């Protein structure tokens, strides 16, 4: 096998000679994994990529680079990671952060599940602490002083006699190519000057001045523009395509056809768009009406074969309920709806493929693309470049595969592929539809004696790893089959994420009905199953509070032992001005909801005030107050921004959004047919209150708001109207119908 190998960082630097770095590159593979070692687990992603120089490099001129295998998706953690390196006692500006790149960074899988701070943040924090110790030890040796007498500040080790050795002077040879210890000597959080402070994000200046900020903005020399002509529906077969007219169009360089995969390449971008339209008109497809009934998802999902598992079964025969209620909640398929459709640039040179992509997982996507191209993964390099916000698995991986497949047909020429709006809407993998059935009974004291929760769902991840997850690979003549879906394992879970309540009930049973068959293309969307499960649990808690004639917040606290959970609930209630049995003005309602994301990440409680127009059914969020506990806060403004965004986005999902389809095609293909929040629906204010926990582990918080926001709004609508809505989205029509019923 003579497959060309894209040089890894070690070989590039060794061979280049131009880059002078003072650490050893001897074994510093970016991918170098952990040897099988027993003993305590290393923190964060140090568990799987234990070498300190996988995370931090110090150049002889003192310049410091932090490497993360995670991708900046607009959450702002590139800035947060730069802050975390304070642990090394260097100025914020001395750090440069390099993000996901299969040639440079550790394999941290996907940037997903609110894991970045827990995995990569913890790795950088602890690596920085341990690198600092190594530098102190080296300085102690050179200065012939005891390590304990030395201090670090501003990128140097300082001795009591005034002598200083900069990190650049100290670092040498293999010094940082050592495996991390399970324990680090971390700074006292009280001394933090950067961590825990609202540092302005490093990516914003370019974004507000027209700098090159996204993969969409990349322009490589001689780059060509390609467009894909997608089938009109899932499974459609290309039966005829006379492309002769397209070939004659100005600027057209090539038409790429491989089975049902069809694309056109042109010199200029709008030439490619025009050629795509002509090619689409020439293509004749055979379609099959295989989609389920959009307005009957409850029966569709609960009728499909499922694999059932009981994930919680707690029994106390001494406690039994008296009053019993049950309810069924549903959620439609929903779109990620990135404002910028997916885009990628690929370049195939001398048998090696490089793809610039906004994928959430450069390593798994590389694996899938290499398999699709029947190339060695070592011959394929994926480099993350920011795209439009994705909120999960959107078209990013697919367009990267499109670009690679097209670029292979044009060796030597970089190819940029930009999906069109209709393609993103019709072909992105949606957030799965879900059904939950709940039944509970109250004892004589108004406590929940018995809780039954069942959830029906597809998997929530069809992410790459296998070529068969990629549209291009599914469509090519030698097609790759879609891999068998798997439920995501607990404790994080997928369809059953947050299905187990954090509340304590004497009797509780939770069943996950995992549905392997996927009528629509689906995958991970922000919060996965937690969005619908928390919506269901927290709506039902309000229904039960009503049955118990209890205040919703007091009712929750009655069943909650977790102190940090109680703290965010009480904080949100207090800041909102929540009062027991308070009556809002006519047409308005107050709502409350709480969850700890995945039952192991950030805590979030949200109180909201909603106004409902009884004539039109229109619900308007007036204000929301959130309290969040993410452990040690790194960038409070970044965290606030994430929670504000979660509330706004979840409000949009909850009030407006559902994918529409007929028996053959997806029919929600733009912003007219898939309306989302606009400025007329923006509330008067959102307040986010952070409960900081100095020194505590980082708890992922990018997704923690999705479920509580939905339930808080639903509970406020119920409070305002006296009607309980259980089918997402809570559209104007559904609210109006409920009022009129």
């Amino acid at each position, binding site marked *: 096998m003579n497959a060309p190998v894209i040089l890894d960082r070690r070989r590039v630097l060794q061979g280049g000679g131009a880059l002078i770095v003072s650490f050893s590159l001897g074994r510093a593979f970016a991918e170098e994994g952990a040897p099988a070692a027993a003993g305590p687990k290393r923190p964060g992603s140090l568990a799987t990529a234990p070498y300190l120089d996988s995370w931090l490099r110090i150049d002889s001129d003192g310049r410091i680079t932090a490497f993360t295998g995670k991708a900046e998706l607009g959450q702002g953690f590139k800035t947060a990671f730069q802050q975390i390196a304070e642990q090394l006692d260097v100025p914020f500006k001395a750090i440069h952060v390099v993000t996901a790149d299969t040639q440079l960074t550790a394999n941290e899988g996907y940037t997903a599940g609110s894991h970045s701070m827990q995995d990569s943040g913890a790795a950088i924090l602890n690596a920085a602490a341990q690198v600092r110790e190594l530098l102190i030890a080296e300085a102690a040796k050179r200065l012939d002083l005891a390590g304990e007498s030395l201090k670090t500040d501003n990128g140097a080790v300082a001795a009591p006699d005034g002598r200083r050795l900069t990190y650049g002077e100290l670092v040498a040879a293999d010094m940082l190519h050592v495996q991390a210890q399970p324990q680090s000597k971390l700074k006292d959080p009280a001394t933090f000057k950067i961590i825990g402070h609202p540092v302005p994000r490093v990516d914003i200046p370019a974004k507000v001045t027209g700098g090159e900020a996204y993969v969409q903005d990349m322009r490589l020399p001689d780059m060509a523009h390609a467009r894909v002509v997608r089938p009109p529906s899932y499974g459609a077969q290309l039966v005829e395509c006379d492309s002769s007219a397209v070939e004659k169009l100005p600027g057209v360089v090539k038409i790429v056809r491989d089975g049902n995969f069809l694309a056109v390449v042109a010199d200029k971008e709008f030439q490619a768009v025009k050629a795509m339209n002509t090619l689409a008109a020439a293509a004749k497809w055979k379609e099959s009406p295989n989609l389920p009934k959009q307005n009957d998802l409850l029966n569709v999902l609960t009728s499909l074969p499922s694999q059932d598992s009981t994930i919680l079964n707690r029994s106390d025969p001494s406690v039994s309920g008296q009053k019993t209620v049950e309810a069924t909640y549903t959620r439609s398929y929903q779109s990620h709806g990135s404002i910028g459709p997916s885009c990628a640039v690929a370049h195939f040179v001398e048998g090696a493929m490089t793809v610039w992509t906004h994928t959430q997982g450069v390593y798994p996507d590389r694996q899938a693309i290499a398999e699709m191209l029947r190339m060695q993964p070592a011959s394929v390099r994926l480099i993350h470049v920011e795209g439009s916000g994705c909120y999960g698995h959107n078209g990013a991986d697919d367009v990267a595969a499109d670009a690679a497949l097209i670029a292979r047909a044009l060796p030597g020429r970089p190819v940029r592929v930009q999906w069109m709006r209709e393609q993103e809407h019709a072909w992105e993998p949606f957030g799965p539809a879900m059904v939950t059935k709940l039944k509970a009974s109250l004892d004589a004291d108004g406590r929940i004696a018995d809780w039954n929760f069942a959830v029906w769902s597809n998997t929530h991840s069809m992410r790459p790893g296998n070529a068969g997850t990629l549209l291009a690979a599914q469509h090519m003549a030698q097609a790759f089959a879609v891999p068998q879906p798997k439920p995501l394992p607990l404790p994080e879970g997928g369809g059953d994420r947050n299905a187990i309540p954090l509340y304590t009930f004497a009797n509780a049973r939770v069943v996950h009905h995992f549905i392997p068959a996927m009528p629509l293309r689906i995958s991970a969307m922000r919060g996965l199953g937690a969005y619908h499960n928390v919506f269901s649990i927290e709506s039902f808690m309000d229904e039960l509070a009503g049955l118990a004639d209890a205040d919703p917040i007091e009712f929750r606290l009655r069943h909650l032992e977790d102190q940090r959970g109680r703290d965010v609930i009480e904080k949100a209630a207090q800041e909102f001005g929540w009062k027991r049995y308070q009556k809002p003005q006519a047409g308005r309602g107050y709502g409350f909801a709480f969850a700890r994301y995945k039952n192991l990440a950030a805590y979030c409680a949200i109180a909201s005030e909603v106004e409902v127009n009884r004539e039109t059914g229109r619900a308007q969020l007036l204000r929301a107050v959130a309290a969040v506990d993410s452990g040690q806060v790194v960038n409070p403004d970044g965290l606030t921004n994430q929670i504000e965004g979660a509330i706004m986005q979840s409000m949009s999902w909850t009030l407006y959004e559902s994918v529409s389809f007929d028996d053959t095609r997806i029919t929600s293909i733009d912003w007219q047919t898939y309306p989302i929040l606009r*400025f007329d629906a923006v509330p008067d204010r959102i307040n986010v209150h952070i409960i900081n926990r100095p020194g505590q582990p980082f708890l992922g918080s990018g997704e923690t708001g999705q479920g509580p926001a939905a339930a808080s709004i639903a509970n406020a609508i119920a409070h305002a109207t006296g009607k309980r809505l259980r089918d997402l989205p809570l559209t104007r029509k559904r609210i109006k119908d409920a009022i009129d019923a």
Partner: protein
Amino acid sequence: MMTLKVNGQENHIDADPDTPLLYVLRDDLKLNAAKFGCGLGQCGSCTVIVDGKAVLSCVTPLVLLEGKQVTTLEGLGTVSAPAPIQRAFMEEQAAQCGYCIAGMMMRAQALLLRNPKPTDAQIRAELQPNLCRCGTHMRILRAVHRAARLMDTADASVNERSGQ
């Protein structure tokens, strides 16, 4: 070949007359700020200013722009010398992914040009055509209010210097 004035500079453009302005800005003039979002005039991420008014560049063909002045976000200021609206968005940290932000800023700028002291309701109404998916709306609103204050201050200081 057509002449197009963008950010004060005349450019000779070799593109079909039906080419939407967005593609000319991005592909011919290598400008980044105006973004492709939908190509249908539904999302506002391609918004630029033409003769003082906010325009959706993805649905505005080149042929309609002869003799007109096009301004993009790049024409307002730079990282080192930001315009008031750019400073305001930085100071309010009014972005998450930021993909919609250039369009938001240009529509807000057009509003502030004709109405230097807009009410909150006027800003909301003006921004109605523009979509943000990250949910950065509260910050965008704050940034536009801040931009109005910054522009007011800038005007005042210019007037002081010129003795008005």
